């Protein structure tokens, strides 16, 4: 099983980024081999539609689980259509989030956690 954790910083202990889509890094963990790969999120600074694009990228990487803090409607719809389960957490580090997931203590998100942003936080 391949997990994707939205990641803010890479130096240990790597911090989890609560934002899906605009996190600067994505940590992919293969639970079968324990192989961990940190990928820079080249889409993070896009003007709009970032959530949906990153969701598609996560699907292309073959992940079946996403662990993040919050998720918007477009990204959720793409992950859902791709059969990817989304878990939300308030854990602050990637390691902590992974441990909670392995212990079965994370909540599965059945709906987006908030409305869309249409270009970051600058709404009018």
């Amino acid at each position, binding site marked *: 099983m391949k997990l994707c954790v939205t990641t803010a910083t890479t130096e240990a202990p790597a911090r989890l980024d609560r934002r899906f889509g605009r996190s600067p890094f994505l940590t992919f963990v293969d639970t079968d081999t324990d192989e961990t790969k940190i990928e820079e999120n080249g889409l993070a600074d*896009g*003007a*709009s*539609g*970032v*959530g*949906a*694009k990153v*969701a*598609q990228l996560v*699907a292309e990487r073959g992940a079946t689980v996403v662990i993040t803090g919050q998720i918007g409607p*477009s990204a959720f*719809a*793409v992950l859902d*259509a*791709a*059969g990817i389960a989304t878990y939300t957490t308030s854990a602050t580090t990637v390691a902590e989030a992974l441990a909670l997931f392995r212990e079965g203590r994370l909540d599965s998100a059945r709906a987006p956690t908030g409305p*869309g942003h*249409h270009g970051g936080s600058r709404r*009018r």
Partner: protein
Amino acid sequence: MTVVVASGKGGTGKTTVSVGLALSLEQPVHLLDCDVEAPNTHLLLPNAGLDLASAQETNRCTVPVPRVNPDRCTGCGACSAFCGFGALAVVRNRVLFFDDLCHACGGCSLVCPEGAITEVPHEIGTIVDSHYGPIHHVLGELHVGQTLAPPLIRAVKERADGLATIIDAAPGTTCPVMEAARGADAGLLVTENTPFGLHDLALAAEVFADLGIPSGIVLNRAGIGHEDEEKLRAVSRRFGFPILMRIPFSDAIARAYAEGRPIVSAVPGLRTEFRAVYDELARMAISPSGAVSGARS
């Protein structure tokens, strides 16, 4: 001549000035409300309280958005890869479309190698036409939840046919303001003499200077804010945009506004001042040879 009224900061009096100017011209004029996310010119016109739902002429504004024919689609992802706005996603060979992210550029239907994408109209707002004496009033209203203001603004502007035209733009310096201002002969920037007012005035002035639209400044609520007008004059000098009018901070004007009456009905003398502003803008917009200067496209 087309005059676009903008401000930078919100709440400085764009609508007050737009409506005041239109009512003062005493000639046929188009008054275009291009603040389509929060149109409000109708509240200040003489028969305030225009019921938008039952207005004289209402038209639906649509933009073309993609519809994918699943029988033809192979899930190749060309549409999704092309879309710069994330409006199309392909997962498990299926295309997902998010209409609120689509900018209606039509690119996806062009790049689809299977001809699987056709365009269908998607309603984003309405356009209401009404008439008050010599004023032809056009108001665009974006539907709640829609984000694509520029196509609706373009549609509102298409209702004007070369008469004198006053455009009430949105606050800020974003795409909707640029779209409202594009092609105007002159600009009128409404400000107040406060730190926020002047800061955002400078941003708006920068936009209008870049667009090549000769502009003037209206100081509203003159008397509040800074002790003197030194900072205002500095912005005026920096961009070469003269201060054309000062609307006083007065009880009579505030009362009229609160009652939804145009300020020229409360202070009739303002009509002459608005006409002088218009004449000065006409002088700035038209070069001595008679050719229209500025950013005509």
